[in-house]
């Protein structure tokens, strides 16, 4: 089903490319080369392309988990972006203030600080949901914007600013840096390019661990059971003795910690300082697509992150090689979302009886079919 949605989105995307006067095969060849290093025609280095895709997909896995977990509790976390920025801010602050501490202390400190800040940011939404019933979609959208403006304030004229006239922070201490897989060496030649261009860092392992923890938490712990119970039916969960309020708050806290971790990994592994490059970041929104496409399973999320990471990296190569605006990637991404959300493929199968036969059974870990907004996500009844 998700594969069908992706294929359908690419078919519609091809139509758009054709209608606007370009060759869809050239476009998709560019995406393929840029994303996966396959079928390159202009001398791209496949290893470099794969490395770029991996760097892009690392935060997508962790934020994807941060969206997928609340889905299971019937909560829609649109705030992964803001939570990630909160994580970046905390990671940078700690990494700058305690810059002289050794790595064994500082690195865990910045990662935990990032997780704590993300958890706090999401916790606000969780608390408002559990206590006054404020819809988490709305609160997380507002919190995203607050985080965006807070970031700008902090590094332009605010306390984290490097110096007047800049829009960046100080660099975090070396002890807070996540190691790269290959040495950051301009003179070491690997596959024809300096080793330093391959920016894959050990944050990848943390991201994969986050996905594994997500699966373990959901299926092997009592908290996971409670989360799923609340997602299925709040009423039934209450009968089973589950505290719905507590579960909502805890779920959001954990989700926020994942997003915050994504932000901390990004700073510790890639940037090492907080700069204006995150003013227009969309990772937290891409995460929604990742979580939906991944059917909320750990393996699915990782695979979906690969797809979106590859699309992201591929857009640039497509524009460079084929001259087709990289904005096509956003169009494709939107089409994939429409397609998954509306389950167009399933509907088409139903309309043409001979085509699909019985709908394929969903894997056991699939989220509740149909609308994502179960009664937990629904607003409380209106008092007249």
């Amino acid at each position, binding site marked *: 089903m998700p594969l069908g949605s992706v294929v359908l989105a690419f078919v519609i995307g091809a139509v758009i490319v054709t209608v606007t006067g370009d060759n869809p095969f050239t476009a998709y060849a560019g995406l393929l080369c840029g994303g996966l290093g396959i079928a390159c025609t*202009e*001398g*791209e*280095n496949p290893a*470099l392309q794969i490395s*770029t895709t991996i*760097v*892009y997909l690392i935060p997508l896995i962790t934020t994807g988990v941060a969206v997928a977990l609340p889905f299971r509790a019937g909560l829609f976390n649109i705030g992964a972006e803001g939570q990630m920025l909160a994580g970046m801010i905390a990671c940078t602050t700690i990494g700058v203030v305690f810059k002289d501490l050794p790595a064994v202390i500082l690195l865990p400190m910045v990662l935990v600080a990032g997780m704590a800040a993300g958890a706090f940011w999401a916790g606000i939404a969780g608390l408002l949901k559990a206590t006054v019933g404020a819809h988490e979609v709305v609160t997380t959208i507002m919190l995203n914007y607050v985080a965006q403006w807070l970031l700008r304030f902090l590094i*332009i004229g605010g306390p984290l600013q*490097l*110096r007047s*006239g*800049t*829009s*960046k922070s*100080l*660099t975090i201490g070396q002890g807070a840096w996540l190691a790269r897989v290959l040495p950051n060496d*301009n003179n070491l030649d690997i596959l024809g*390019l*300096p080793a*330093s*261009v391959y*920016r894959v860092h050990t944050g990848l392992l943390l991201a994969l661990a986050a996905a594994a923890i997500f699966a373990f938490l959901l299926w092997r712990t009592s908290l996971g059971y409670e989360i799923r119970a609340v997602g299925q039916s709040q009423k039934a969960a209450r009968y089973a003795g589950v505290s719905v309020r507590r579960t909502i708050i805890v779920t959001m806290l954990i989700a926020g910690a994942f997003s915050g971790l994504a932000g901390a990994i990004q700073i510790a592994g*890639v*940037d*090492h*300082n907080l*700069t*204006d*490059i*995150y*003013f*227009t*970041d*969309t990772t937290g929104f891409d995460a929604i697509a990742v979580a939906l496409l991944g059917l909320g399973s750990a393996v699915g999320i990782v695979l979906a992150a690969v797809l979106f990471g590859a699309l*992201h*990296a591929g*857009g*640039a*190569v497509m*524009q*460079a*090689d084929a*001259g087709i*605006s*990289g*904005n096509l*990637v*956003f169009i494709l991404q939107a089409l994939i979302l429409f397609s998954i959300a509306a389950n167009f493929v399933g509907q088409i199968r139903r309309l043409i009886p001979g085509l699909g036969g019985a709908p394929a059974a969903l894997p056991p870990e699939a989220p509740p079919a149909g609308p994502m907004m179960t009664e937990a996500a629904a607003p409380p009844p209106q008092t007249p």
Partner: protein
Amino acid sequence: MGNQRLRFLGVVAAAMVVAMACGGTSGGGTPAKQYKIGLVTDIGGLNDKSFNHLAYVGLENAKKDFNIKDDVIESHNGSEYVPNLTNFASKSYDLVIGVGFLMQEAVGTVSGQFPNVHFAIIDGAGTDASGADLKHPNVESLFFKEQDAGAMVGVISGWLEKNGKAKKNQHVIGAVGGISIPPVNHYIAGYKWAAKMEDPSIAVLVGYSNDFTDPAKCKTVAKAQIDQKSDIEFQVAGGCGLGVLQQAGQSGVYSIGVDADQKDADGSVIASALKKVDVATYTAIKNVVNGQFSGGALTFSIANDGAGYSVDNLDLPADLKAELDKVQSQIKSGALTPPADIPA
């Protein structure tokens, strides 16, 4: 014709390579070497009505004159700068151009990885994380004296006010900046300095919209200045600033465009302060093609016709023309130096 000249150049270049055994650019043996130029925009994209667009125009102009394969990547967010620059550099492009000071750190990183690839950056240098210029010999930093251009339109504004040739003639003019950053403030500094030089009694209102894309925000700031009797509105805010020109037109006062000639943006535009990013881009490409690439800063100013002004929807009085020519030649000669920081 361009092609013939180029072929001739190519032959000469080939001969020179053989004679001097020192290739400024790698390859270059064939009579008509095709130069690969890669342009990476910042998050504004190609249609930002500002420096990204002008850089693209410069690239296209160079394409007409030289044998160039030109490729562009638009960056959609800042984390793409390094990969996008690396893309071109790893394919051994002859010149990789980064547009805008937002890309300084990325250019610094990638130029260190590819010492044999030429880089150029608009409005900045290749820096480290602390913003210090790494001075890589393969990076050409293209800076502009925006204050030169600002001063010329400042002369126009001050002169019109002093001589009662503007609309309200209350000796008040305004400038709307995007964000208070050096390239924006340089313009405003020159503008205010020159206007005060022409008309010592003038008041120059300075406001910021904190935005480079949303015309409505700049329009509100311009409206506020016009309500405070401002007679001539200078926009220094890219796409956002189009709202300034618009508001001036609707309020019946004059306006001044920025970066490119914005004559067509509104009937109220009497002049534009030009920052010739297209000329700078063209120059960087020409330098590579001619084997004259040199690392370090190239500053574009009135002196080398890299900054200037255009007179737009205004019948320029002869006296003002004379004054403009005088000031321009004095700036050229160094007799006058517009300040880089906004004077009090």
